[in-house]
């Protein structure tokens, strides 16, 4: 008796179950809502040119008197802080809610309409992380407000004049470090040992891969 003359009912059943599992797999698969659009190297290159990154406080003048309608301000602080005071016309999206579907769709719309999105928080640092994240997932219209809300609050009446102020600009040396750190007293010499020591590291452990074979 040849096996091909028997009815493979059970085999068919098992294979159909397999097909159902595959169909379930397709149905339950969630496409990730966003993914990296810049690789790490591109992200590093992005940091080199600051003109595309920064939004200066004096640029707010045009936004506030509605001359520049291409800018959307987004307040990343929590709702309470927003309620106590914010830059006029700003939209409140607390930073933890940024990737909610609704907000992501909103940001996508802004990008499609060619609007510049300016993120701000109390200081530059708090808005800088979300800004960098959005740049990496492909929102090239997002900028960060230098100085943050605190600086704005201090200078909101003379924003245009801040063009000549650099106290809010980060990443520059405010001191002559080497000079300041030298003792006035020459009896001791210090900072002799700030040359790096050779550091030897163990290699990082590789990711776990199942062992196997016979």
């Amino acid at each position, binding site marked *: *008796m*040849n*096996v*091909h003359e028997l009815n493979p009912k059970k085999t068919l059943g098992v294979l159909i179950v*397999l097909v159902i599992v*595959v169909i379930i*797999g*397709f149905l*339950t*698969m969630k496409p990730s809502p966003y993914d990296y659009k810049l690789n790490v190297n591109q992200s590093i290159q992005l940091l080199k040119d600051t003109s595309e990154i920064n939004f200066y406080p004096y640029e707010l003048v045009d936004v506030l008197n509605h001359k520049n309608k291409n800018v959307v301000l987004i307040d990343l602080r929590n709702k309470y802080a927003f309620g106590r005071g914010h830059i006029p016309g700003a939209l409140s999206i607390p930073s933890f809610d940024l990737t909610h579907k609704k907000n992501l769709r909103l940001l996508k719309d802004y990008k499609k309409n060619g609007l510049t999105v300016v993120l701000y928080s109390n200081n530059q640092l708090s808005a800088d992380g979300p800004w960098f994240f959005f740049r990496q997932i492909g929102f090239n219209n997002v900028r960060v407000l230098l100085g943050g809300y605190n600086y704005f609050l201090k200078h909101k009446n003379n924003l245009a004049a801040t063009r000549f102020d650099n106290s809010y600009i980060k990443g520059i040396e405010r001191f002559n470090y080497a000079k300041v750190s030298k003792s006035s007293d020459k009896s001791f010499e210090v900072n002799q040992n700030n040359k790096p020591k050779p550091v030897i590291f163990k290699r990082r452990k590789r*990711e*776990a*891969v*199942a*062992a*196997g*074979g016979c």
Partner: protein
Amino acid sequence: MGPLVLNGFISSNWNLLIAVFIGMAFGFLLESSGFSSSRNIAGVFYGYNFVVIRVFFTAVIVAMVGLLYMGYFGWVNLSQIFILPTFLPSMITGAVIMGVGMIIGGFCPGTSFTAITIGKIDALVFAIGLYIGIFFFAEGYPFLEKFYLSANLGHVTLADVTGISLGWWALIFTVFALASFWITASIEKKVRKRIKDYKF
């Protein structure tokens, strides 16, 4: 998500228990498919019984296709699974020796173990032979070491070697296997007409 053990969903102690169950399923399927009979195994090479080809190729294509789907759905991280390393010269030699051993002995290790459980002495002798063979290899290892470790390609897949994606390979194997099923069925029919005394 998977492999569950590597990603910390299951402790490695449970893993050993699961190994027993997986082995049980494996042993059960080998035995119940007829692999515990050396005549069934050897039959494939004389054209009167293709059960080995059928079980083997079906398992391979189901696992291949299933693996790709599981990787696609994100159920298993394909970069974490074990892929047999490739040492072509020693593997080809080993496979040739295994092929001869299979014809002479009528078993392969897994099938001999299941055959022992149903009381076959020849399977037990085959398993003892396995043990001796591995012992010989271990003793002769100093002479074989260079050959054993030559041409190490590492854990490469077909896609790494050929540049054709794994999806195409799965399709190629599936078509090949399905074709072989239909062809062997007709061969079997013809050969069995000739061998009248063997009842199937």
